[in-house]
């Protein structure tokens, strides 16, 4: 029998990487919040790779941290190896990645949530979202659990990951199931359909886990962590810890033969899998078929934690039958005697069509219903956490009667991610990439705090103390750049000797330090040799000064592009426009605009099928409206 179980401001359905950020953000903004998970031991679980960050994803984690989210801090507490990627390719693409201790990560996150004021955690499967009709739209009133408990609330955030009608596929065997051997959530999809929400069916997969004892490490290549550790969180000072290595092996012609001989048993080729899988994350059998010329693929072996011998086999995601999996793994150097602990599997799940959302991640058709993470068609822990944070902030702001927080494409990767999903939609699980960000030189991981911490402070997720520290850092950067602009290096013998050592042309008259720093062969650190009066500054400050000076030209140009971009972005479109009544729009534009109801002319311009002429029409339409008023 149904019963009334309590009243909350915000209810969060799912406690994966999205749900944790949602719940914490909402509670921290002062909303009475409850988060549900089918199994509380699965909070912040990593059912796939045991790592956080990487290209573009690392940027997302830094942004989450700069706004006051938890992922960066939790990673700093629990990582076992740290790496800097792309260090030679320039500051825009420089990225952090950490291997984490999967269990410790979960325990830390769960504990943080348990201690969070305003936040209750409940083990339960949500089977229904409850709404009332309000004019011609619906409004959230609560959620119902499998056991009949009804929780009244003002906002609901769906962060269901891959649980909705989850189906596990291993070769010719398939069964109803969630990730990592957990139960799926089989009922909620129907409730969503009933509310008029459109669902997609997506697919993803994960490779096998092996016992470390069974690996012959003499045949694989060691991949140690970096000596210098850069923390994810701007609040973490310095970290020193023992790091654990990853290992590298590769497929052989034998592996490829095993796969080819057994392709007919792959559900991907027999048609048993209907969900759409990601292009960037193909299974090993996909890779062999699509890139037939490639003789070998590299395979990483990654530790799952310090208190386990389980190892993750990156690059071998597969939905081939178990016996074939074992046979093919044994063809990899070092894995001849492999002991598999968990098989690779593919998982199919329901997600929503994200174009049903506003940029605040609230459903257009159901007031108070938000969604974030993999349910929105994304893939990856970081993408999930980023959306979860924004959905949590916006659900709370809604309850508090405030305007939503929307980051645009020029402010953050988070903005690019959400805008891509909501405006363009996706037909495969969406992964963040630096190449998706048109202003990536501005959206660097090193300046995420400069971009976003003031916003986090204004929103209420950044403490006074942290904000003060941030302001000190910001001032130091400005002061130091000013000082370099004002200070002149005299053409002394010592200075010219310094320049000659670096193959830099000598100076005849005095030259500002900032000019010297602009020379590619001169680094900020190196310049210290002749710049005697420089103040003692933290690494973060020195890094900002150096990047700001060295890339000034390009940064300025991107900022000009942003200025152009903002013009259309700032032209807000009213939500109640019936575009079929707007004179001069093409038919396709009318249909798309009515369907997506973009929030600005800029957003409209990114909808496929809306042409530049249609944008002109919208601008004139807006001006008409303005003058009529």
């Amino acid at each position, binding site marked *: 029998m149904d019963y009334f179980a309590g009243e909350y401001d915000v209810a969060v359905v799912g406690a994966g990487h999205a749900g944790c950020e949602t719940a914490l953000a909402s509670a921290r903004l002062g909303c009475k919040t409850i988060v549900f998970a089918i199994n509380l031991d699965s909070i912040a679980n990593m059912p796939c790779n045991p790592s956080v960050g990487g290209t573009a994803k690392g940027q997302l984690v830094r942004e989450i941290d700069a706004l006051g989210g938890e992922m960066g801090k939790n990673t700093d507490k629990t990582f076992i190896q740290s790496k800097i990627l792309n260090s030679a390719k*320039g500051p825009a*693409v420089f990225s952090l990645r950490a291997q984490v201790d999967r269990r410790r990560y979960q325990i830390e996150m769960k504990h943080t949530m348990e201690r969070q004021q305003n936040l209750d955690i409940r083990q339960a499967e949500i089977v229904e979202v409850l709404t009332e009709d309000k004019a011609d739209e619906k409004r959230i009133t609560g959620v119902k659990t499998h056991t009949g408990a009804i929780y009244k609330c003002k906002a609901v955030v769906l962060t269901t990951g891959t649980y909705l009608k989850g189906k596990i596929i291993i070769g010719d065997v398939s069964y109803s199931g969630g990730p990592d051997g957990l139960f799926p959530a089989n009922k909620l999809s129907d409730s969503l359909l009933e509310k008029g929400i459109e669902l997609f069916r997506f697919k993803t997969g994960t490779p096998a886990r092996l016992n470390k004892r069974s690996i012959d490490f003499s045949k694989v290549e060691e991949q140690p962590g970096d000596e210098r550790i850069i923390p994810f969180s701007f609040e973490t000072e310095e970290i020193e810890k023992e790091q654990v290595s990853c290992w590298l092996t590769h497929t052989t012609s034998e592996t490829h033969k095993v796969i080819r001989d057994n392709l007919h048993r792959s559900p991907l080729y027999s048609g048993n899998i209907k969900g759409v899988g990601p292009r960037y994350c*193909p299974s090993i059998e*996909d890779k062999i078929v699509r890139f037939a010329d490639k003789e070998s693929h*590299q395979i990483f072996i990654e530790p799952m934690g310090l208190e386990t011998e389980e190892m993750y086999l990156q690059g071998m995601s597969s939905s081939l039958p178990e016996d074939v999996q074992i046979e093919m793994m044994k063809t990899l150097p070092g894995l001849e005697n492999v002991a598999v602990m968990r098989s690779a599997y593919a998982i199919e799940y329901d997600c929503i069509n994200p174009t049903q959302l506003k940029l605040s991640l609230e459903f257009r058709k159901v007031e108070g219903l938000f969604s974030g993470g993999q349910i929105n068609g994304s893939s990856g822990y970081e993408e999930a956490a980023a959306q979860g944070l924004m959905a949590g902030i916006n659900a709370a702001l809604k309850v508090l009667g405030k305007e939503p927080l929307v980051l645009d494409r020029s402010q953050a990767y988070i903005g690019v991610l959400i805008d891509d999903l909501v405006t363009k939609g996706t037909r495969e699980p969406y992964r963040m990439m630096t190449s*998706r960000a048109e202003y990536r*030189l501005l959206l660097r991981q090193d300046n995420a705090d400069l971009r976003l911490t003031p916003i986090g402070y204004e929103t209420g997720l950044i403490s006074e103390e942290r904000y003060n520290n941030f302001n000190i850092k910001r001032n130091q950067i400005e002061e130091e750049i000013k000082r370099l602009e004002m200070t002149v290096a005299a053409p002394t013998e010592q200075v010219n000797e310094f320049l000659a050592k670096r193959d830099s042309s000598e100076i005849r008259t005095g030259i500002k330090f900032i000019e010297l720093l602009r020379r590619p062969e001169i680094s900020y650190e190196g310049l210290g040799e002749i710049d005697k009066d420089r103040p003692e500054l933290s690494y973060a400050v020195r890094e900002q000064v150096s990047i700001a000076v060295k890339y000034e030209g*390009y940064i300025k140009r991107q900022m000009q592009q942003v200025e152009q971009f903002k013009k259309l972005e700032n032209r807000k479109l009213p939500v109640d426009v019936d575009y079929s009544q707007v004179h001069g729009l093409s038919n396709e534009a009318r249909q798309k605009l009515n369907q997506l109801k973009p929030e600005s002319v800029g957003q409209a311009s990114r909808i496929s099928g809306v042409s530049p002429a249609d944008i002109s029409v919208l601008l004139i339409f807006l*001006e008409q409206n303005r003058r009529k008023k």
Partner: protein
Amino acid sequence: MYSSDTIAAISTPQGTGGIGIIRISGSGAFEIAEQLFKGRKPFKEYKPNSINHGCLINPANSEIIDDVLVSKMKAPNTFTREDIVEINCHGGMTVLKKVLELVVKSGARPAEAGEFTKRAFLNGRIDLSQAEAVIDLINSKTEEGSKAAVSQLEGKLSKRLKSVRDKLLDLISHIEVTVDYPEHDIEEITGQEVYAAIKEIRNDLERLTEGYDKGRILREGLNAVIIGKPNVGKSSLLNELSGVNKAIVTDIPGTTRDIIEEFINIGGIPVRIIDTAGIRETSDLVEKIGVQRAEIEIDNADIVLMMIDASEVITAADREILKKVDAKKAIIILNKTDISDIERINQIKTSLQGKIIIEMSIKEGTGLDRLETEIKNLFVKGDIKANQEILLTNVRHKVLIDSAVVSISEAVNAYQSGLPLDCITIDIRNSADYLGQITGESVSEDVMHRIFSRFCIGK
């Protein structure tokens, strides 16, 4: 105000006289004039709302392009309510294009279809009641423009454009995959490789713009096509108008087997005259192809010069041809009046009432002046429009390719001065973006597609 970037375009229909106007609107208009105009004093010292005489120069080498009048109009009392500069040039289309290119190089962007009017409206210059008319104007201009773009993009030029763009996108996707998948066993692109590739692309692009300069400029203007029965004197007329003995003229019907074209200047209007094989039912295969092509040319023509033998009666064949040109602006030329008589000529004229008819004898050189006057009249009255959108689109393409060259050169410079890959990529992407604006394709989606189809990446 709606937007502060500066736009420019040729704002007079070309060919209506010796003068053409380039209009520049936006906050940068005066600054651009400052760079390009050399008058008695610097441009900034001229009073607003003045017209000033001087030279238009190429600031790169101080070469004088044209003798011009430049008007300076200060916001907000202008058509767009922005600062406006109008450059009145004397030269024909070639000079106008050159000037527009310089204006764009100095910081303006080519205006979109109907954009001056759009700005005028958005800035409150045009009355609300005319909003729909403004929208219709933009839509119709865009439609004409895209038709023109399509017709421009057929052929050799588009193939070359596509091949450069392909190279650019391949390069970008290789860079992006290197950047986004650093630990995958794909072959990482090196700085040296990027450098070699961008230098090659720069050369390709430069060759492409040369192609525009040499090939296209001449091939524009009014399309006039000469048709008529075989041996009525079409090739003679072409030779007469162009002053070159280009077509083979004989007394044997059907000598002109192919289309022969010539560019001439009629009262300042560039006219491309096409001589067609005579239209008649024919069994000769070679000629048949010529006839078919002639019919296509009639469809594409802005003006049709229909020649009739004044020494004969109007035949069924003539009527057949008249039917084909019915919808077109046509001038009927009664040739060979020297061997005809007044009665016969009047008889023919009565049967063709309502049409422009010119009596002519090419042999004796009469009627040719009148033909030129009639063509000019039709044009000035606006009864025939030169395919102006093609011209403007063409200028737009050229300007965009030029911008692509500038961007790729910046990438080359960036590499030489030791900047990292992520900076250089910005320039390379900009270059691809400019080319994409010609074809209307988006760089980021193409790149994403290439990454996934060319490289093996995944967990």
